[in-house]
């Protein structure tokens, strides 16, 4: 009898395990904490879920959209989803959504902060303040990036040139390539492989 119970229990557990859309064999979901806020990263539940939103569009017009090369630059690592998750779990640095604010407000990847790519493209106070927050120093117009945090950038997808443009602009002013990472798949691949997106709650109007 006990054996039968165990068999039934094992059977039920294995069905439960099979029905899971885990991230990897070891990880079902990941809880991360950014600025005191907890976020859960997981893949969508269920069996027949399809992507039907604007991220299922295949053909963005060129210009400005072209398929991006796998790497932005030799020293900048390209990340996939697991590497993004590790970066967040280990608090390795700042995860940047480089898209325009309107995109970020619709949906983003949990744990990211919005710094639109254009800020990085020119010499401006806003950019300088952000870089100083990252740990860079500017003395007499010369940047010192020796203590800067690592940053990981993404935008809309493999066809989006915004995060690559930001990375290239930062390379130009001496930001170390080793401290920059590029999640090329962006929010499109994030959803295509089944991850849920973070939809920011609109702040209640006073």
């Amino acid at each position, binding site marked *: 009898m006990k054996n039968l119970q165990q068999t039934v229990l094992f059977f039920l557990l294995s069905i439960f*395990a*099979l*029905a*899971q*859309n*885990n*991230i*990897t*064999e070891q990880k079902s979901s990941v809880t991360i904490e950014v600025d005191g806020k907890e976020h859960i990263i997981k*893949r*969508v*539940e*269920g*069996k*027949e*879920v*399809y*992507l*039907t939103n604007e991220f*299922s*569009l*295949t*053909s*963005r*017009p*060129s*210009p400005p*959209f*072209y*398929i*991006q*090369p*796998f790497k932005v630059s030799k020293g900048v690592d*390209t*990340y*996939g*989803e*697991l*590497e993004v998750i590790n970066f967040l779990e280990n608090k390795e640095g700042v995860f940047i959504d480089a898209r325009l604010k309107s995109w970020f407000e619709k949906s983003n990847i949990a744990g990211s902060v919005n710094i639109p790519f254009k800020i990085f493209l020119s010499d401006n106070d806003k950019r300088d303040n952000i870089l100083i927050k990252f740990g860079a120093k500017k003395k007499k117009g010369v940047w010192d990036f020796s203590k800067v945090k690592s940053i990981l950038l993404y935008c809309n997808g*493999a*066809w989006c040139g915004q995060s690559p443009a930001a990375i290239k602009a930062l390379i130009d002013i001496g930001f170390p390539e080793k401290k920059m990472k590029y999640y*090329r*798949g962006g929010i*499109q*691949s994030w*959803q*295509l*492989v*089944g991850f849920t997106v973070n939809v920011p709650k609109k702040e209640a109007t006073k």
Partner: protein
Amino acid sequence: MKLILSIALLFSILSAGKYDKVKITEDMSYVFVYHKGHAIKIHRIQDIQNHLTGTYAKISYPCPGMCIQPISFNDKIETIGEVEVVKFIKNQVNNKKGVVIDARPKKLYNQGTIPSSINIPFSLSKNTKAMDNILTVLGVTNNSNGTLNIEKAIEIVVYCNGPWCSKSKQLITALLKKGYPADKIQYYRGGFQMWKSLGLTTVKTK
């Protein structure tokens, strides 16, 4: 009339791709390649309203089974994206220096594959005799003393269904075990799902 037609034809050949609305990269709209004896134009779907539908728009993947794969397979094998795959077809495949390998089961290959791909289902990995034949096809020969001659092994790109598919890994592992040189293997992690998500050309086997 004939003259007008032939001028029109000549003009359309000369300007092919020049006015494409959706390009691959800034300086590349298409690449021609042979697939089973037929010339195929690899380009992108030009309808900017086109959505990815069907199997590859699916985002609910059970794991164990379809778990997210790391960005790189090992540090000797380069991971590449769509731009590099297209360039590989243009430079290596068209000059008979390389071949693209679809590691998925034959049924999926027949339903649609990347033009010029040959099908080596991952399931053959465990079949020693089949692997020996595959190595011969890929240019590996036997020295008179019985050792393998890998000097003329051709360059290969291996892919499967998507970033959540481990079949490429299984096939690459088997090839490495057989002695195939790692520097001649590239891994297209995005696979068939990401290829389709960018509206790139696929071919069916009838």
